[in-house]
């Protein structure tokens, strides 16, 4: 066992990378749930994003174009969910679950010819001087563009929900859709936009896995990150900054346990592998003990009655 091989700077830098897919998926789902919709199809939208982004990046040679395609693909899949739940009034839980199963199957089909290929690499940020700083350089200024996009997305969602009218209307729709309708807000339209946003974010998260974190395409490679994102939103009490905290915690424990495995610590691998899930949920459960503030209309379908 050799713990000295673990470099704390690299560890922090790589936990940020490990956390980013989760961050994308969770912040998207947070917006969806704030509007009162429970979309359990995050995993499906992520994997579709992963394969669409991968394929586009390989064919075009541009990882950035890959991300654009991933967002589009995730949003496209979420349209299916939106039609089912917002127009056909289908049950949200069942629709979400089938979206995940559908996404997993479809991605396996689409990705058949891409197994074993290396995607084009995304350029890392390289700011002269700043990126060369010791410790701070690799942690803050040495990542790819999308990682910063995810962080900015968290900040933006927080600010929009807290300070803007759009955010207020979004919360209102998720809180009491009947009242929002009575005041003349377009409940269905607002929810569909939120669902599309959530789909696009999940797609980006998926592509981050296949293009940057791994980077290659294998079937079912999202490996439950979508489900963790769903749990994360709940345990973060629908607060963007807690999502960030939870995601980094999850990423951190994941990276640490990988390092420990590599260092040959005398703990069975299975325990190490399950530790990120356990620890993240445990910490967030303790954090969310104050007052759970679920949107009151979460998961309830809206009929514009009479």
């Amino acid at each position: 066992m050799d713990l000295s091989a673990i470099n704390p700077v690299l560890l922090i830098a790589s936990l940020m990378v490990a956390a980013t897919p989760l961050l994308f998926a969770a912040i998207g789902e947070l917006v969806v749930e704030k509007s009162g919709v429970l979309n359990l199809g995050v995993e499906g939208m992520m994997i579709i994003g992963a394969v669409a982004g991968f394929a586009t990046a390989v064919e075009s040679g541009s990882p950035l174009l890959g991300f654009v395609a991933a967002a589009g693909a995730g949003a496209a899949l979420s349209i299916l969910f939106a039609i089912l739940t917002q127009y056909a009034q289908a049950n949200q839980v069942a629709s979400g679950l089938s979206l995940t199963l559908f996404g997993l199957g479809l991605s396996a089909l689409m990705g058949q010819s891409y197994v074993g290929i290396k995607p084009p690499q995304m350029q890392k940020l390289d700011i002269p001087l700043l990126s060369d700083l010791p410790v701070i350089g690799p942690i803050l200024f040495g990542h790819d563009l999308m990682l910063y996009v995810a962080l900015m997305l968290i900040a933006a969602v927080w600010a929009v929900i807290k300070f803007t009218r759009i955010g207020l209307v979004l919360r209102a729709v998720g809180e009491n859709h009947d009242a929002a309708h009575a005041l003349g807000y377009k409940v269905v339209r607002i929810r569909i936009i939120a669902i599309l946003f959530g789909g696009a974010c999940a797609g980006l998260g998926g592509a981050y896995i296949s293009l940057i974190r791994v980077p290659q395409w294998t079937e079912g490679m999202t490996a439950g990150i979508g489900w963790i994102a769903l749990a994360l939103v709940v345990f973060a009490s629908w607060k963007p900054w807690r999502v960030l905290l939870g995601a980094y915690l999850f990423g951190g424990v994941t990276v640490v346990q990988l390092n420990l495995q590599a260092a040959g610590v005398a703990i069975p691998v299975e325990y190490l592998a399950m530790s990120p899930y356990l620890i993240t949920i445990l910490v967030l459960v303790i954090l969310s003990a104050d007052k759970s503030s679920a949107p009151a209309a979460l998961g309830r379908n809206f009929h514009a009655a009479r």
Partner: protein
Amino acid sequence: MTEVLLSLKGLTKAYPGVVANDSVSFDIGAGEVHALLGENGAGKSTLVKMIYGLVKPDSGEMLLRGAPFAPNEPRQARADGIAMVFQHFSLFDALNVAENIALGMENPPKMGDLASRIREVSEAYGLPLDPYRTVGDLSAGERQRVEIIRCLLQDPKLLIMDEPTSVLTPQEVEILFQTLQKLRAEGTSILYISHKLEEIRTLCDHATILRLGKNVGECIPAETSASEMAELMVGAALTPPMRGKRDLGEVAMDISGLSVPAPSAFGTALRNVHLTVRRGEILGIGGVAGNGQDELLSVLSGEVLTDSDAVKLGRAPIGHLGPVARRQLGVLAAPEERLGHAAAPDMSLTENAMLTGATREGLVKNGFLKWTAAKDFAERIIKDFDVRTPGPENAARSLSGGNLQKFVIGREVLQRPEVLVVNQPTWGVDASAAAAIRQSLLDLAAGGAAVICISQDLDELMEISDTFAALNEGRLSSPRPAEGLTVEEIGLMMGGAHGMEVAHV
């Protein structure tokens, strides 16, 4: 009448199977308080929804100050100076007062400015309100203030109020009326929807009466007696329930020192509740909604379990028994929410009859259902309580609110309860059906059962109950004989104006 503000001409709106409004015409003058009277289902709500742009009329037209007016959505109606205070408040519990108000405005100012304007306007109209409080923590009266101020901030020409007093204590009603009179003096028209005739007589200048979607008459309320208006509303003379002589027997149910924590974040905790009800007695429990009514019912019915000694049937402790065991002993309950709590919406009336009647009516044998007996029982309820439905095989959801209410009450009454607990027994029921339900409760008590009637309708409680107590923030006032109680006394038992002082300007 002076200048006409809004004129309705032949408004018609039909829904599948029912004509909600059939060629309704009337005028609302500038600066008048116009009452819209009618029973539940008379089409009042549909009519105001058309004025507010939530529903489009099939035919007919509206003129606002002589110009055609056809709002496509509430936004447009608001822009034209029409504001509405909803019957079921259109508020968001988790948001604060200022946010709630901002949601109802077209171009809300910045939050800071809005908060100070809320303070200004609320003081000016004697409705003080803290803009930063969370709405979920406010009393019903305060919530209504939020809605009214949301309307006032937009300088409305016409303020629509849909049953505004149904959730208020008498003291709160008084404050509201002062506000409305002030608004009228400033030239704002008010369309006031209610079925409380005395209120309309004191407040309104003019009244239009709807029955089954048609305008059946207009009157000057101050010059018309309440019974004349009631007859116009119902279309027939009403027979008030007959109160027979009853002898009170031994104590049937006894609750002492009962405290139960709130079941949910916006629920109410019961605090040190004492009550006794004797055989042959009707105990009326008043109070504004959300002061512990649902919680009290669930403690009595056995949905919430307590210490076994906290609830006693006669001398036997039953606090630890669930609903089925209590039903066996004769403690029956009819909760307020018809669809989902008192009845399963998508199950047939036979199945619904079986759900609560199984033990006492012997509808189950060795775990098997006795369908014929259940159907007979359901048919008996339908017949005895005049439930209007093609037959017991229809789903509970397909019945109108009033008819389902008759079924729900009838189902319990026919099971010969020892103690019957009802919550809002005539909520949403038309006047003649309500009279029938009240009569059946009186008959039940005359037969020696104890009845606990929880209701927000004070007139109803005064009509049937022997003793009266009020719930306020989970505390039950000490019961007093109902006879001779004045409105002021009742209001004070209900908590007065809930600390809402009128600001003196």
